[in-house]
């Protein structure tokens, strides 16, 4: 059976146009592609004839008579359905909010995001695996550093003592004042060290 339209396969312009004729007839080509096909059809009577025939063929197929079931179809079907039970568990009814949400998210967008969400999860796992040793190393350095311990502990002690001495319930600004006092004392200590 002849499976293609090509009357002159040597002619690359014809080949190119004919490959697109089916989609051209359906208006599925981009504006540029459609313009290219039309430009070729204007210059090539053989392809223009093919395009007309293809369009007519499609119209004839679409215009074929349609058939429907016999009159007793529904009665027969219901008689059969009476002896049948839907299988599987009944799905949980979807909440109104979930239904609205589903229609706000077009199916195509959700389908498009599905691989993206997979990639996101994969990236998250890789990042966690990569970052874990670094984080552990960071924590290890801090906990083992004698410098850090000596520098941080007195400040924290000063702060907690000053905070305990104040009463933030009576005066909300007390904690800030306490913190200011700690900073001042730390600054004084630092200045004293420099002087020595």
């Amino acid at each position: 059976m002849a499976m293609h339209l090509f009357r002159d396969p040597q002619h690359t312009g014809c080949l190119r146009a004919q490959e697109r004729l089916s989609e051209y007839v359906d208006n599925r080509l981009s504006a540029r592609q459609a313009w290219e096909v039309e430009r070729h059809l204007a210059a090539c009577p053989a392809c223009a004839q093919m395009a007309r025939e293809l369009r007519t063929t499609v119209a004839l197929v679409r215009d074929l008579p349609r058939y429907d079931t016999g009159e007793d179809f529904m009665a027969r079907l219901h008689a059969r359905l009476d002896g049948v039970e839907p299988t599987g568990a009944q799905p949980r009814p979807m909440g109104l909010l979930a239904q609205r949400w589903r229609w706000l998210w077009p199916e195509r967008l959700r389908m498009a995001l599905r691989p993206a969400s997979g990639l996101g999860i994969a990236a998250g796992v890789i990042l966690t695996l990569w970052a874990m040793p670094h984080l552990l190393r960071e924590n290890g350095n801090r906990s083992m550093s004698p410098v850090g311990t000596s520098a941080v502990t007195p400040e924290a002690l000063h702060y907690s003592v000053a905070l305990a001495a104040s009463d933030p319930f009576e005066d909300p600004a007390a904690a800030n004042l306490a913190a200011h006092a700690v900073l001042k004392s730390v600054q004084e200590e630092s200045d004293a060290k420099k002087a020595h």
Partner: protein
Amino acid sequence: MLSAAGNVMHADSALVLRAQANDRAAFNEIVLRYKGRIFNYIYRTIRHAADAEDLTQETFVRAYQSIRSFQVRASLNTWLFRIATNLCIDYVRKQKTHVPAESLSCAADESEQDAQRDIPDAALDPQRLLIDKELTHRVEAALEQLPEKLRTALLLYDVEGLSYEEIAAVLECPLGTVKSRIFHARAALRDRLAPYLNGMG
């Protein structure tokens, strides 16, 4: 704003949700909505009215049985056509094992054409009477002679109005394959009908 297809899908989803909760009236509505398209598609695929009606019944029985496993966000249209297509494939396979292949592909067989004329409820649009009956028979014969895969793609696209994407889902094949099958099916039909198309279009 929802598109027309989106509205249909929304209405279908509401019916499916009710049918999943054992609402037979909702399932009845689904059948009424789709039985014509499913029957027309099956009949044009297997060309046997009584068997097409049985397969249409079977399509809805299977849909009813497994309605609870249907994902509401999917397309009911696509799902029903997929069930129908699988039934047609099984039917044609069985026929091929029992009937000589020549008689299946004999499109211009007079008895087949008579059977087609006797189909009940054929659409009798007055405008259709103007179309050359002989040409309609030629188109049907040419359609029947197409290889099964090409005919299925063409029927789903040009006769039942499914999109390329929906056909890819029904036939479970890539979009490119769908495009290619439609292109080749149309080209083959045009080749067969070319002698009768002069002066038309």
